[in-house]
């Protein structure tokens, strides 16, 4: 039977409460947490409201606010679940990552102060690792950085990892702090509401929020064996791409409806089975119009109730999906419908017209028997996610037959190491026009998106795949990155640090979200399948392949592109020079994309296969004595081999990206212990250290060596932010 995933612990901190009890009481009483913003200077701004967390006792002051909020929520979830186990993974969704630390760093720099301690907190890559380290955990980690869908996707990814045997318990959810970056960005886009946001009602803009929601996602048998309290089951979920616009939803609601249907299909239920929908409900005119249309199309004629809890919390961005998942789980377990607040009598009359036959819960919470509920998230970059929680016992589903997955194409754009400390890569308009990219698209791309678009296009072209209306929903993409769009983020932030919050650039802001590159790719190529971006250090370039492998096993997609992309920037150079992580290795930039494909699709297309993915594993060490980094890398390698049904002697070549500090020596020592018969290959010698791009490129190189029959079996492994991903390829 397919492994079942259940929720056994909840934790939250958000504008309407510092824990579950406070927040849920606010929901039941329709209490808003929106007030005048204190943490961001709103001078000269046309709007000044926000939902902020006011809690003086946040733990771990050494970390970014995103991490501190997340630790607070995770602490509550761990206590609620009653676990002491350390083998717990951490999957965190975030939109803006360490934006508060970037702001702090640049603001200090303007005053002539160099705050180097901020640097390690800047990238979203660090969040899950820091949370894991705080609790001394050693389960697999990831940061899902798909903007406002991230909190929902992290829960679904935790379920994927449980089903693929990469852990039994995960702290999954999302976190985002209130930040000048997000406030200035939405202000520049004129997307902020002057009054408190009024989703599914006046729909005149969003109000930003902050916070973290964490759910303990646990394998059902594991939960039963330890006598855990089970709130409900994760019945199903779906993720896809709109392929429409970088900030606006498709007004026809096609992507939203498709993702809702994906979730219903995965759960094996119909719209009639859903008793409550926690809507994305941001309160922008474009979102609400598209969402009304989607909800009516899918749910008209059912007894479903709908509300947007953002009317109370504000839009918590990367935390939104997780905070709303917590409320949805509470709704299911307590049979209470959360309301959308803010309707006047006049508004209620207008709502009746918009609601048609659907029950939009206005102003007051109500009791209702809720067996099954859905939470929807629709993000920048066009990422949509939908998840269903069920109280009632579901019909157990058969384990889908394990699919064979092949590598059928590559695309790469990488710097060349010419002996200088930093190797850059310049792309110009010609590189794009020769790939059919017009100026209107090219202009919108930051460096990170440029790199990803080129390697992605080339990978599809190498695999001889054309995107058509027939296969567009069957093709998706997972991008792995260490530092994300760091140049665009720092340029945007520098501008507002110098000139104030009103100086945010509407043009730049959409590219500050980590999944913009994936969004640009999907919009250009019209790919509408699963899309995710994972920030998790260098090894994210392999983790993306592992993630894509699991997505293909679920059966919605035939083809998944899995990429590693990292750009150079002054900030990255400074960090690497001062941390000594890289030793004397040249720092490069680039993007590498691999095309993965199911056996059925390969056969049907008569595609050339370069290698088969035989197995993979992801591990994590917080550097604790009871589970060292050496143990983590060994476990990743041995577990990947076991899943591939192979022995160490079967491996002909080992591709490894290891560190330069003592931990790197330890990593290499472990590898030479396991594989005394082979030299490890480091692909960074030609390109410089392109971080996630290098991690991905080594898998491409291994696959090509297999195709050329130089070797029969290869293992590729990489490290980053305490995590290790290992993958085994065979001919």
């Amino acid at each position, binding site marked *: 039977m397919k492994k079942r995933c259940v929720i056994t612990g909840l934790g939250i901190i958000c504008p309407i409460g510092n824990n579950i009890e406070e927040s849920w009481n606010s929901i039941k009483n329709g209490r808003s947490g929106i007030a005048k913003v204190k943490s961001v200077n709103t001078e000269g701004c046309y709007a000044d409201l926000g939902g902020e967390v006011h809690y003086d006792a946040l733990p771990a002051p050494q970390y970014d606010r995103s991490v501190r909020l997340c630790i607070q929520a995770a602490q509550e979830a761990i206590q609620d679940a009653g676990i002491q186990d350390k083998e717990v993974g951490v999957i965190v969704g975030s939109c803006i990552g360490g934006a508060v630390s970037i702001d702090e760093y640049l603001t200090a720099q303007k005053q002539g102060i160099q705050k180097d301690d901020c640097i390690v907190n800047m990238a979203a890559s660090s969040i899950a690792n820091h949370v894991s380290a705080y609790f001394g955990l050693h389960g697999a980690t990831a940061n899902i950085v798909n903007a406002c869908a991230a909190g929902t996707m992290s829960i679904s990814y935790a379920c994927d990892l449980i089903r693929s045997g990469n852990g039994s318990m995960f702290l999954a959810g999302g976190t985002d702090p209130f930040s000048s970056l997000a406030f200035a960005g939405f202000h520049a*886009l004129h997307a902020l509401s002057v009054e408190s946001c009024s989703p599914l009602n006046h729909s005149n803009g969003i109000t930003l929020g902050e916070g973290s929601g964490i759910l303990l996602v646990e394998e059902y048998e594991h939960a039963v064996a330890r006598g855990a309290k089970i709130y409900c089951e994760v019945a199903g979920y779906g993720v896809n791409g709109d392929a429409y616009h970088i*900030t606006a939803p498709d007004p026809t609601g096609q992507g939203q409806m498709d993702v809702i249907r994906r979730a219903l299909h995965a759960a094996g239920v119909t719209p009639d089975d859903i008793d409550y929908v926690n809507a994305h409900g941001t309160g922008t005119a474009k979102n609400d119009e598209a969402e009304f249309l989607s909800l009516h199309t899918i749910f008209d004629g059912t007894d479903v109730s709908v509300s947007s809890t953002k009317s109370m919390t504000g839009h918590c961005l990367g935390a939104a999906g997780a905070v709303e998942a917590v409320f949805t789980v509470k709704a299911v377990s307590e049979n209470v419908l959360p309301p959308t607040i803010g309707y006047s009598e006049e508004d209620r009359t207008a709502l009746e017209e918009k609601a048609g036959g659907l029950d939009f819960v206005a102003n007051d919470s109500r009791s209702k028997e809720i067996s099954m509920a859905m939470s929807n998230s629709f993000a920048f970059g066009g990422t949509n996610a939908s998840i269903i929680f069920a109280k009632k016992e579901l019909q157990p589903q058969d384990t889908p037959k394990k699919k064979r997955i092949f590598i059928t194409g590559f695309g790469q754009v990488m710097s060349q190491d010419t002996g200088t400390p930093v190797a850059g890569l310049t792309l110009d308009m010609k590189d794009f026009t020769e790939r059919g990219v017009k*100026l*209107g698209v090219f*202009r*919108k791309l930051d460096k990170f998106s440029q790199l990803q678009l080129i390697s992605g296009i080339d990978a599809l072209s190498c695999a001889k795949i054309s995107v058509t209306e027939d296969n567009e929903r069957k093709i998706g993409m997972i991008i792995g990155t260490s530092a994300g769009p760091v140049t665009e983020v720092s340029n945007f932030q520098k501008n507002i640090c110098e000139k104030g919050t009103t100086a945010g*650039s*509407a*043009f730049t802001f*959409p590219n500050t979200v980590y999944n913009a590159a994936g969004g640009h790719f999907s919009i250009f190529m019209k790919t509408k399948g699963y899309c995710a971006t994972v920030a998790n250090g260098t090894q994210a370039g392999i983790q993306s392949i592992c993630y894509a492998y699991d997505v293909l096993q679920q059966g919605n997609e035939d083809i998944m592109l899995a990429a590693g992309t990292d750009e150079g920037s002054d900030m990255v150079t400074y960090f690497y020079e001062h941390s000594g992580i890289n030793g004397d290795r040249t720092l490069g930039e680039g993007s590498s994309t691999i095309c993965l494909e199911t056996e059925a699709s390969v056969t049907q297309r008569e595609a050339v296969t370069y290698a088969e993915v035989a197995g993979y594993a992801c591990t994590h060490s917080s550097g604790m004595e009871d589970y060292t980094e050496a143990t983590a890398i060994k476990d990743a390698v041995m577990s990947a081999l076991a899943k591939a049904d192979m022995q160490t002697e079967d491996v002909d070549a080992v591709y490894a990206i290891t560190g330069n500090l003592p931990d790197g020596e330890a990593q290499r020592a472990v590898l030479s212990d396991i594989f005394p018969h082979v030299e490890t290959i480091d692909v960074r010698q030609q390109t410089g250290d392109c971080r996630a791009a290098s991690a991905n490129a080594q898998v491409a190189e291994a696959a090509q060596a297999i195709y050329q029959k130089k070797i029969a079996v290869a293992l590729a492994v990489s490290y980053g932010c305490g995590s290790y991903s290992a993958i085994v390829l065979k001919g």
Partner: protein
Amino acid sequence: MEKTEVAAKIKAMLIENLRIPEEILEDDSELFGGDIGLDSVDSLEIIAGIDDMFGVNMTGVDKTNFRDINALANYVVEHAEA
């Protein structure tokens, strides 16, 4: 302010802020259609840039005034405070 001077400043802003290649941008190039293909987000950036440089607020102004650099410059010259 002279129109040519205004137009030159607007052109520089479009090149810098909206990544339009200099070699294809003429004073009569259509901004929101054709090859350049600006969109609503770009128009927000133009409004912010013009407000910043000339103190002229173009929020809600008819889109014909955004047709090309000439139209933008004309609007600015007509509405800039002396």
